């Protein structure tokens, strides 16, 4: 079958032979297992057990939280001894929430049962079972498989690609799994094919440096429509986009998924996990992990329980700490150094590498870039690593994005060939992080701006409402005064406002001396009515202000009510006095 050749690429020493001399082994049961809640891309799982609870092997201990999440199961039987933050295998060396299980040594399974009739099961039921089994892509990224297998009706899948490339040096987890479990893997591929509606084209992509694995697969694929495609070994052929190009000659547009061009690419380790989940009903609680490197006496693959501490693995592999230059999780090209050997194996851990100083010496100090251009030749994505390097150093985010930094797969080929030992990939990772941080900050600041503008608008509106109330009140007062002016008592005030009130009162007093007693009495009665109205208004205002105002404002309003009441009393007093006087005059 025809294959295509990707640009760039390198040929580092393979060092795969050391770990395939022995079949896949098992480790003694560790005393304690530490299971991180986030072993996949997406939201972390949520614990559904409490400390002290006894669990059986395969029992669910954490639920998926949202569509892009997978549940987690107990890798062995025992007691939940802690749910807390612990160091996990992450380049930051930071802590993350984990569940610790103290093994009871019995390794007792919960009752489990697979699908009896896989052929007639609906794809939706199978996808749900895969999701419930906690399967996330085992090639390294940890993308929830159930999500990958439900691409939607708009995107019919015509090609299913099984990734058995395993292009990184040292790692042989997939290789050995194929050699020993080819039949089960093919069964798993059959299930995937059924889920995806039997795509017309099913290919297993494998590098030609694994002849034993190819030979193991071939008898099982006869009459199944599955083709095993081997192609020349080159790093990095195992990237999803690279493998799809090698097998089909089609490039996936930047930012798109394989499903956008009708393809799904699944790691071969995942197909085995799918088979175990569907046919045997076993959730993903263990995986094949390569233990290799010169600092270890035993180099081989182990069927490792998820949550096994790396230190446990090392202790059973004749590990010599003194000769070990560093501990790497993953391969030498894309893996990351571990800060502690207490961290656990997770669903995506395909290799623990404990190299000697001869194998992987300390990083040489970086020297200035000499513009040789070897990085550009090695880049499998045809980027311009040199330009990216300059822009990364200058923190020029705009240009980095214009030069498609985010298409970089961080394979490390450019760093590998750099004669000046510049850690190019680390520069790119740093810049990617900075850009993502800047994007997050932009989102946050836009949100803050929106809220600030709303806040301003709210305050303006409140101010406007207050102003409108004030004018309405003033107009009402003016109207009342105009009415009063139109009545026979011409001398009553005609202007509004506090000062006018005083003037009006003075005028009224002057007029009172002249006017007849009847008129005087009517005037006092009017002023009582006015005072009553004011008192009522002040009380209403106080009642309105009951909520949402500070104490200070309330005090002011209470004082106003009190004042109005006093004025009313005064007016009443004056009237009473006037009547008394007047009556006295009449008697006289």
């Amino acid at each position, binding site marked *: 079958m025809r294959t295509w050749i990707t640009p760039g690429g390198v040929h580092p020493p393979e060092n795969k032979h050391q770990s395939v001399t022995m079949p896949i082994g098992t480790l003694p049961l560790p005393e304690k297992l530490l299971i991180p809640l986030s072993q996949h891309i997406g939201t972390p799982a949520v614990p559904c057990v409490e400390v002290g609870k006894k669990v059986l092997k395969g029992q669910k201990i954490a639920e998926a939280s949202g569509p892009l999440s997978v549940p987690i199961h107990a890798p062995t039987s025992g007691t939940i001894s802690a749910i807390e933050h612990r160091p996990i295998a*992450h380049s930051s060396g930071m802590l993350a929430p984990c569940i610790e299980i103290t093994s009871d040594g019995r390794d007792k399974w919960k009752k489990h049962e697979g699908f009896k009739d896989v052929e007639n099961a609906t794809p939706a039921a199978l996808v749900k079972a895969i999701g419930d089994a906690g399967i996330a892509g085992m090639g390294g990224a940890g993308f929830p498989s159930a999500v990958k297998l439900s691409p939607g009706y708009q995107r019919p899948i015509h090609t299913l690609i099984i990734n058995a490339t395993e292009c990184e040096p040292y790692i042989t987890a997939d290789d050995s799994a194929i050699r020993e479990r080819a039949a089960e893997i093919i069964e798993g591929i059959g299930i995937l094919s059924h889920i995806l509606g039997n795509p017309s084209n099913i290919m297993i992509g494998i590098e030609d440096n694994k002849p034993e694995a190819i030979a193991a697969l071939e008898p099982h694929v006869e009459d199944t429509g599955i083709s095993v495609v081997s192609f020349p070994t080159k790093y990095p052929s195992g990237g999803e986009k690279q493998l799809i190009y090698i097998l089909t000659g089609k490039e996936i547009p930047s930012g798109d998924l394989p499903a956008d061009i009708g393809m799904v690419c699944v790691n071969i380790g995942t197909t085995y996990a799918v088979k175990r989940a569907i046919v045997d009903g076993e959730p993903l609680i263990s995986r094949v992990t390569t233990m290799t490197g010169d600092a270890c006496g035993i180099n081989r693959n182990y069927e490792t329980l998820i949550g096994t501490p790396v230190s446990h693995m090392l202790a059973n592999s004749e590990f010599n700490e003194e000769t070990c230059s560093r501990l790497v999780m993953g391969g030498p090209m894309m893996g990351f150094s571990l800060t502690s050997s207490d961290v656990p194996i997770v669903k995506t851990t395909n290799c623990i590498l404990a190299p000697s100083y001869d194998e992987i010496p*300390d990083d040489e100090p*970086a020297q200035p870039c000499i513009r040789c251009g070897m990085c550009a030749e090695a880049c499998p994505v045809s980027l311009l690593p040199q330009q990216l390097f300059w822009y990364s150093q200058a923190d020029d985010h705009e240009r980095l994005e214009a030069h498609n930094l985010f298409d970089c797969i961080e394979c490390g080929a450019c760093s590998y060939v750099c004669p000046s030992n510049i850690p190019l990939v680390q520069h790119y990772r740093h810049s990617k992080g900075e850009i993502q*941080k800047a994007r997050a900050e932009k989102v946050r600041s836009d*949100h*803050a701006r929106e809220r600030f503008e709303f806040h301003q608008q709210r305050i303006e509106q409140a101010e406007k409402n207050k102003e409108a109330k004030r004018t309405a009140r003033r107009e009402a007062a003016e109207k009342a005064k105009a009415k009063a002016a139109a009545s026979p008592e011409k001398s009553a005030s005609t202007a509004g406002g506090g000062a006018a009130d005083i003037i009006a009162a003075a005028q009224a007093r002057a007029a009172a001396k002249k006017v007849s007693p009847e008129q005087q009495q009517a005037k006092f009665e009017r002023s009582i009515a006015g005072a009553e109205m004011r008192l009522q208004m002040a009380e209403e205002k106080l009642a309105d202000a009951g*909520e949402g105002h500070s104490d200070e404002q309330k005090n002011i309003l209470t004082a106003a009510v009190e004042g109005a009441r006093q004025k009313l009393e005064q007016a009443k007093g004056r009237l009473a006095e006037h009547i008394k006087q007047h009556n006295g005059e009449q008697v006289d």
Partner: protein
Amino acid sequence: MIDAIAQQPILAALIALVGLGILFGALLGFAAEKFKVEGDPIVEQIDELLPQTQCGQCGFPGCKPYAESIASGDAINKCPPGGQATINAIANLLDVPAPELDAEHGEEADVRTVAYIREDECIGCTKCIQACPVDAILGAAKLMHTVIADECTGCDLCVEPCPVDCIDMLPVEETIKEWHWPAPPTTADLIASDRRPAA
């Protein structure tokens, strides 16, 4: 008339040019009215670059007013929350040299902080609620208040009005999700063996 003008080439040229001038002038005038840009676009662009903490450390009541001030010629180095990155971005936008941050307005913080109300001590005076520029504090008179941490910009404006000093500015801890790779070390140690820990 036309004949008379045709006889006078200079006059004809003059009339033609003046005519064209009037025509294009009218066209431009119309376009200026028709496609008028509301507001000052440069203010919007500067406002986009400012961090929107609304903290007022620049001396303006919010980021937008400072953006307006920059557009009319104010210094661009008065924003401590934005720091050097913001200064550089604005300098880039306005095509002016980027100055250092003006220390008079404050220092650039290393970590983001958010306000935190010690709820036991809160007396419910609503003063912080009135001070918050982004309505991130929840509460009512004589009832306990609390800060919605996700909405808090860390502007500090609520700290000062609090009569019982129950508001702290706490640094936001980096989560494993927010972590990203640090920049590779600069090549200070040129000899590799010097960096290996002494055996």
